[in-house]
């Protein structure tokens, strides 16, 4: 599959500071690719280099087959960008903003329809300074779509949105993907990446720590699905005697990985045999969030990430 973005050995230095430290990745056409990382990890710097807003210090990169710094004009015509913390002119309305972008991109744009699409129709004639944080973000997304882009960069598009609005934006992003557009999503909501991204790269200290689909990453770094038993002190004593179970006791919770079938059966039989009241039983699996916290935590402690 064609890569819409390909990056090899990208470095960005500000004096002695290496904000981006030799990262390589590629984004396949028509997919949602997500950059995850703590603040200051180098996400926005990388994205701005891809958007042609900053110049790379070293490395080769192609966006839609073009050099984003030198061919910025053409790249900008074919990509849509919602910058982080999107701002616009205070005294301009969303309707005027979309029409303005339409004129700049030389395209016919049905501004009310586009605003309806991002759920901003009701505020179409309010000036930007009167919009809430979430409504401003929505205008940012609308403007990123004016030129009918092949590739859309969204830098933290749902920051500041209420849960309902966030879900609505997710729905919009799914539609955009269905239309064949490639989406480069920067976010620090792990749930968002897990829900939307086909491919995730976790970036920290300017380096890509790991990359893969959310499911792959969870499978690789997570602890896998498990049964959790909420035990009383009496029941804990019973369970601690089950072979292979003692190490899984945390407080009054006992966790048994699903793949340890025999241990699980032994545990359940021990509970039944004890005649005690059955504990609350639930199943759990790691989310991307737990994987992320684990990986970034390992990096912070100076250790290397498990391969």
């Amino acid at each position, binding site marked *: 599959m064609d890569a*819409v973005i390909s990056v090899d050995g990208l470095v960005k230095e500000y004096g002695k500071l290496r904000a981006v430290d030799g990262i390589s990745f590629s984004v396949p056409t*028509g997919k949602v690719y997500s950059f995850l990382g703590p603040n200051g990890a180098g996400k926005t710097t990388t994205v701005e280099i891809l958007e042609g807003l900053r110049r790379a210090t070293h490395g080769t990169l192609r966006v839609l087959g073009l050099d984003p710094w030198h061919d910025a004009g053409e790249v900008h015509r074919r990509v849509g960008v919602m910058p982080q913390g999107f701002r616009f002119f205070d005294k301009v309305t969303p309707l005027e903003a979309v029409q303005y972008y339409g004129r700049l991109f030389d395209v016919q744009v049905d501004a009310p329809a586009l605003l309806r699409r991002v759920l901003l129709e009701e505020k179409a004639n309010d000036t930007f300074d009167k919009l809430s944080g979430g409504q401003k973000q929505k205008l940012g997304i609308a403007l990123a779509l004016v030129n009918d882009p092949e590739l859309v960069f969204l830098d933290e598009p749902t920051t500041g949105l209420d849960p309902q609005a966030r879900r609505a934006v997710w729905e919009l992003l799914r539609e955009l993907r*269905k239309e064949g557009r490639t989406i480069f999503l920067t976010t620090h909501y792990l749930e968002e990446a897990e829900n939307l991204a086909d491919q995730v790269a976790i970036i920290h200290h300017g380096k890509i720590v790991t990359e893969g689909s959310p499911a792959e990453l969870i499978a690789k770094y997570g602890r896998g699905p498990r049964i959790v038993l909420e035990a009383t002190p009496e029941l804990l004593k019973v369970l601690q005697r089950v072979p292979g179970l003692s190490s899984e006791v945390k407080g009054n919770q006992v966790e048994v990985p699903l793949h340890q079938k025999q241990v699980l059966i032994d545990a359940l039989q021990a509970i039944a045999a004890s005649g005690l009241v059955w504990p609350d039983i639930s199943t759990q699996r790691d989310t991307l969030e737990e994987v992320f916290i684990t990986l970034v935590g390992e990096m912070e402690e100076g250790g290397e990430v498990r391969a």
Partner: protein
Amino acid sequence: MTLPSDPSSDPSAPSLPSSPAHGSRAKGAARRRSFLRPSHVWADFVLYTRAYMRNPEALFFSLLFPVILVLLFGAIFSGSSAPSAVPLYIQNLDGQNATTLAFYHYVEETGLVTIHNVSASAGPLGTYLSQHSESNGIVIPAGFGEQVWNLTHGGRGVPVALQFYDNPFDSTSAAIVSGAVQLALQNFKGAPVAYLAKAVPVGSLSFTPKTIDFEIPGLIGFAILMTPMFSMVNVTSEYKKEKLFKALSLTPLTKGEWLLSKILFNWLLTFLAAAILFATGILAYGAHVIVGPLLIPFLLVGPLLFVSLGMLIGTVSKRAETAGIIGNLVTFPMMFLSGSFIPVSVMPGWLQPYAKVWPLYYVIDGIESVSVFSDVAHALIDLGIVSVMAAVAFVAAVLVFRWREE
């Protein structure tokens, strides 16, 4: 690179409001990239103008505030003659001739000048003036009174020339002196104006200027300075802070198109302000001002100069707050010293050279030359100076100003 699937051809996908073929649009646009596209300039101009009109504070300072100042100054100085008397140094080489003494009296009576006598023994008047840092002087040659008397009583003879000294860069006071002399000579019926011989020609005054006549060019200068300067300091520093330049640089709008639109907007506002100021002065106080075509280049080059200066200040300042402070530090002394409110010609002699370091001085002096003195030659000198300053500031601003960071 092409889209894997054309969204418009996918019936299940809700199509975006626009979907021209990507490839052809991109190629066409790339070809046009290096040009200034009028449609982009117009779109940005319309958006900016609309937003500006929604900002009552900005409108007040751009259009209403100068009008309030005209009304205020007009009321304060209503009916008073010249801004205040210009010092005039007269060296009389004609002794106590009665006609000469009458001429003295008439010059003084105009109220336009304050006469200082320089004795014949003081040496050449030119040297005297430069030693005393003064610029306006007249030498009355021997035989002047007799000649005037002869000519006004049907006699014949060659007119005796008065010798003028003035500062070619201060048309205001030179023209006031010239006006005072001409007004004085009108008392001698039949005395031809050919009596006046000047080293440097300045326009003639056929009326006694009132303070309001000087206030209008000053306040137009004020409008030319304030809006372009403050709006550009503000726009460039705020856009940088709010990352609006970044957002704009992601569209096909170019730096040149954006800048041209801001210049057009400031021209519009300056022309509006000038029209309102002229109208207010004429209608409310009967100001005697000439609205000539030579005003147009001043109303074009002036805003260009201050748009560029404002942009320079906004761009080189790291923070928006610093830009505001630097903007004020440049604007306020320039406003007061260049003759916006008080004509430079009535400032103390030692202060006048400091007026001439500010670009606004030449704008106001030029507008005054056109609208008060009809002195085209002098106005052209000012226009030349302003144009050179504007060109330098514009080139510097364009070179320093960046859409994107390296």
